């Protein structure tokens, strides 16, 4: 379905945010992508821009070989939704992540997240994605 210019912009912006900041734990890019009044709902990070910078500093130290992939990307108005697969080290079945972002003033204003460890074997042959 065709996106509105705003939705296409939001999808492109968030995709770039993954590659340039979230996948590289690059705390120096936070102000570029994240709204000053950022509302964080993730259970993995504390609030605001500062909480996100602290999260990146922690993860960059603990998971230097992490590999993250975008498996799905969707848009609805101010909202974008992403399916992410995070592999922390070789042989890791990984973590499934669903991210929901709400955009405001051209930056990410609010974030919700659900995280789940992927079991080593699934009860079907369809894969997680």
């Amino acid at each position, binding site marked *: *379905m065709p996106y509105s210019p705003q939705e296409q912009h939001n999808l492109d912006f968030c995709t770039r945010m993954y590659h340039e900041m979230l996948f590289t734990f690059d705390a120096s890019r936070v102000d570029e992508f994240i709204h000053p009044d950022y509302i*964080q*709902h993730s259970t993995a990070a504390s609030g605001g821009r500062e909480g996100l910078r602290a999260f990146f500093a922690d993860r960059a130290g603990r998971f230097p070989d992490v590999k993250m992939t975008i498996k799905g990307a*969707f848009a609805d108005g101010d909202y974008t939704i992403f399916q992410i697969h995070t592999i922390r080290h070789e042989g890791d079945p990984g973590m499934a992540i669903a991210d*929901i972002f709400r955009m405001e003033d051209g930056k990410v204003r609010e974030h919700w997240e659900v995280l789940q460890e992927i079991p080593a074997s699934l009860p079907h042959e*369809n894969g*997680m994605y």
Partner: protein
Amino acid sequence: MARIHRPRNYTTEEEVNLALVEGLFENVLNAIDDEAVDFYIWPDYIQHSPSARQGTGPLKELLRRIKRDHPQSVHDVKRMMVDGDMVMVHYHARRWPGDKGWAAVDIYRIENGLIAEHWDVVQDIQPGSINPLSPF
């Protein structure tokens, strides 16, 4: 039902797809009614959830088990979003009053009027998160 605020007009297809998934939550998951499954989901729908087997048979079994063991179960929808044939639902599942439950994002693909594919991610609500804000 908690659709997100609507910054644009949805297409007719999107309205129909949202209504289908709203109906799934109301008439199947929250009604805990295995007999209503076939009105919403194709029998051979592709299951990606790591906690469910393929097809509607296992889903119907699960609903019967929930109805027997946890008849007060709720799927409390916090927000629903639509993108063409894809519908995303962020909700708080609880098995009994006072249950902390779990957060989930379900993603549905709709084809020819019914759900044809399903992905989900679920996370138990646990005390002691680094973040004092609600996950919702």
